[in-house]
């Protein structure tokens, strides 16, 4: 009789122990991130958080290792895993003990009940599978969060490159206008232009100075933004030039297919609907099995007699047959399906918008490259030739250069818009698409010293 009790206890203990908890899978998430970002594994562990990165890939390494947000996302995954393990554990068996003193007989009457929650054991596989789905979703969310951070970094990196180049051009733009004003001062001092003309030149110079200040601040702000995304203390320095456009852009359906197969949020939504469907099926299957416990009951009577035997506890589905839970599960599934659909719509629209932005930037850049910038180059050369022959004055000459620089800044805006839209597309693809590597942009206007030296070789005369 006691043997039966020991066997029952042993069985329960073994069953409880055989259940293995869920694992967070944070290493897999990190590996997936590296894979998506095409980063090399070794470099990540070697990354030093006190050195500022020089390239975008380098920056992503740094961010993965140094940005606390990455570690926070992984820690949240651990916490969530623990909570899930708590939720799916099997309840411990209940031991009931009743001791009664009897007036009529000598001795005490002892009742001992051991009741295990058999319902937990029966439903355990289904509950574990649901928890696994929740964990899988959470992993996808974690992956999405880290990829978003990397994408924010990529986006900011392009913004920073543009801001840096624009600030450089803007500084030269302001210098050009400033020189024009200084030249105007000389002309005015010589009595050759009036105050009105001089004031115009000063206004132009001052306005250019305002823009220059603005551009310098914007560059600094982008630097700080990147610094924050990297999780480092020192300001990074641009050592990688903005690139020219790849030959072509992907089409909508290609990116959509990549996104469907790879984007963590779409994956999570898909996992969610699958789990909800499974959950509904279980609710239906076990609609009559509400609560069920089994165990052993032992009674030692005051009179000395002892009885032992199996005991069960079963909730009878007379008034409640789980209909409300089934309805709720049905509703959850339908909601999850619609959420997935809404997410598909969102991604489809965002992909089209991002590609549209890229195509707009591409066509604008083509106009700049094919027509506007060459024409400005010609205009500048011709204005200098006219200046040489006293057909155009120095103010017009310098103003033409200033206008050329303004146009180059507008061109840079469009180039930046292209790369930022491309990085948005990369985010929409779940990091699984990235634009082709292209050559660095060369800006003649930023290297006039070399031209000046060449000019000096041809034109040795210095007044």
């Amino acid at each position: 009789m006691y043997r039966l009790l020991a066997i029952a206890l042993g069985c329960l203990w073994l069953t409880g122990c055989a259940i293995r908890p869920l694992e967070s899978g944070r290493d897999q998430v990190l590996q997936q991130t590296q894979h998506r970002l095409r980063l090399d594994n070794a470099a990540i562990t070697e990354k030093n958080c006190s050195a500022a990165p020089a390239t975008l890939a380098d920056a992503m390494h740094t961010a993965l290792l140094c940005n606390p947000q990455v570690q926070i996302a992984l820690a949240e995954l651990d916490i969530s895993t623990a909570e899930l393990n708590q939720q799916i554990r099997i309840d411990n068996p209940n031991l009931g003990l009743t001791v009664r003193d009897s007036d009529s007989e000598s001795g005490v009457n002892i009742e001992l009940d051991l009741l295990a929650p058999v319902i937990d054991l029966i439903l355990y596989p289904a509950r574990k599978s649901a928890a696994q789905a929740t964990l899988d979703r959470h992993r996808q969310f974690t992956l999405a969060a880290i990829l978003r951070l990397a994408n924010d970094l990529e986006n900011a990196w392009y913004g920073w490159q543009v801001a840096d180049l624009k600030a450089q051009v803007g500084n030269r733009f302001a210098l050009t206008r400033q020189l024009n004003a200084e030249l105007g001062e000389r002309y005015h001092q010589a009595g050759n232009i009036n105050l009105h003309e001089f004031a115009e030149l000063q206004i132009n110079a001052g306005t250019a100075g305002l823009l220059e200040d603005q551009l310098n601040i914007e560059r600094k702000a982008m630097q700080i933004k990147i610094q924050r995304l990297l999780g480092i203390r020192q300001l990074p320095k641009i050592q990688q030039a903005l690139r020219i456009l790849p030959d072509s852009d992907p089409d909508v359906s290609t990116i959509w297919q990549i996104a469907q197969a790879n984007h963590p949020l779409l994956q999570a939504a898909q996992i969610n609907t699958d789990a909800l469907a499974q959950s509904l099926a279980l609710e239906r299957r076990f609609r009559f099995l509400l609560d069920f416990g089994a165990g052993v009951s032992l009674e030692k009577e005051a009179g000395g007699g002892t009885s032992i035997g199996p005991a069960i506890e079963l909730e009878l589905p007379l008034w409640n047959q789980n209909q409300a839970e089934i309805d709720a599960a049905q509703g959850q599934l339908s909601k999850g399906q619609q959420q997935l659909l809404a997410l598909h719509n969102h991604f489809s629209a965002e992909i089209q918008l991002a590609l549209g932005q890229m195509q707009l930037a591409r066509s604008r850049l083509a106009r700049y490259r094919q027509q506007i910038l060459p024409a400005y180059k010609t205009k500048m050369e011709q204005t200098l030739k006219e200046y040489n022959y006293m057909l155009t004055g120095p103010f017009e000459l310098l103003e033409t250069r200033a206008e050329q620089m303004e146009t180059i800044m507008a061109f840079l805006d469009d180039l930046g818009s292209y790369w930022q839209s491309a990085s948005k597309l990369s985010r929409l693809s779940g990091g699984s698409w990235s634009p082709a590597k292209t050559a660095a942009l060369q800006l003649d206007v930023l290297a006039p010293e070399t031209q000046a030296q060449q000019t000096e070789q041809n034109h040795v005369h210095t007044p």
Partner: protein
Amino acid sequence: MSTRRNFIRDASMLSLLATGIPMRASAALAPPANTKKNAADARIITLNGRSLDYRMNAEVKEFHLIAEPVEHEFAPGTVAKCWGYNGTTPGPTIEVTEGERIRLFVTNNLNEHTTMHWHGALLPCGMDGIGGVTQPHIQPGETWVYEWTVRQHGTLMYHPHADEMTQMAFGMMGLFIVHPKQPTTPKVDRDYAFLLHNWAMHPGTYRPDPSVMVDFDLWTFNSKTFPAIDYLYASSGDRVRIRVGNLSMWNHPIHLHGHQFYVTGSDGGRYPQAIWRPEVTEIVGVGQMRDIEFDAVPGDWAFHCHMAHHTMGPMSHNFPNMVGVQQRDLVERIRQVVPGYWTHGENGMAEHAQHIVGGHHRNSGPANTMPMMDGMGPYGPIEMGGMFTIVKVRDDWDGKSNPGWFNHLPGEQAYKLE
């Protein structure tokens, strides 16, 4: 009573009335394609030009002018799509003698109609060539004939009187010189002639702009600018006549150095000596002709329009004045943003001429654009352009070639005070 013959005549008159165009067809009236007589007997020296060949057809002297597009060079480095006659602007000089019967064929090889007006000529009104007034226009491909007996002498001109603004702006004009039947005295040894003109040849363009009224770019003697204008040569003591006609849009005070010349004639012929007057500058108004005469004095004598801007090449009218502007310390900084920047004109514009004519900026201007100032003399840049040339008079001139620069006699040249 109408005969059959009258009917034919009347019918042809009807057709004439219907079209308004006079027509005559005769083998004897074909344009002189092969002029037997060339202009080797010309007495006029047309600057940078020539006299038109002619043919004697019985007692009639026949000329053929062909209006057509021409590629013209104002000076080396500046060419343009112009319109002219017989391949040039101005067209060749017509030389006739008072009393001659002349017949002038005018063929239109342009793509628009034209006419020919004989400026200053005394002729029947119907020969005056005023499109729409005295005749229908000469359509492209047509040849029209002008014919009269010359009853005057003097310096005349020819030019279209159809879309005149455009056609003259493009260079359609020429000299028409009538020699007196009876020689006049004193005898002229060297008889030069040219036309004054202005051109809106905007820097970097290749076709004159006919819409410009005031701000012209090029000022020319016979469609050439200094230093491409021929020099005028003479032997010391020669009686020199210079005939100047003005078909530009400005009046030009024509000035000769080293001589008191006499204003001796115009389209009205050689004046009676009683009204000759001594001058050193004579304004030739728009549409006027003036003849000046002088006895040549040895030297290299400047001869030019005295409007200072008319002795310049193209320059901007909106160019800020550079004189007196101290900016050399800014140059290096400006070169940071405009490589190749240089200063010119701080102490006056001669510096500009030095850089352009003698320096490395020689060809640094826009395409097809001559510098503002040009020309190099024995002592440095001449700093001229436009309506400027030199009258070269020598004791020992060989009668045909450029004698080079004048050798001044000791004590007859300005000298520097040491």
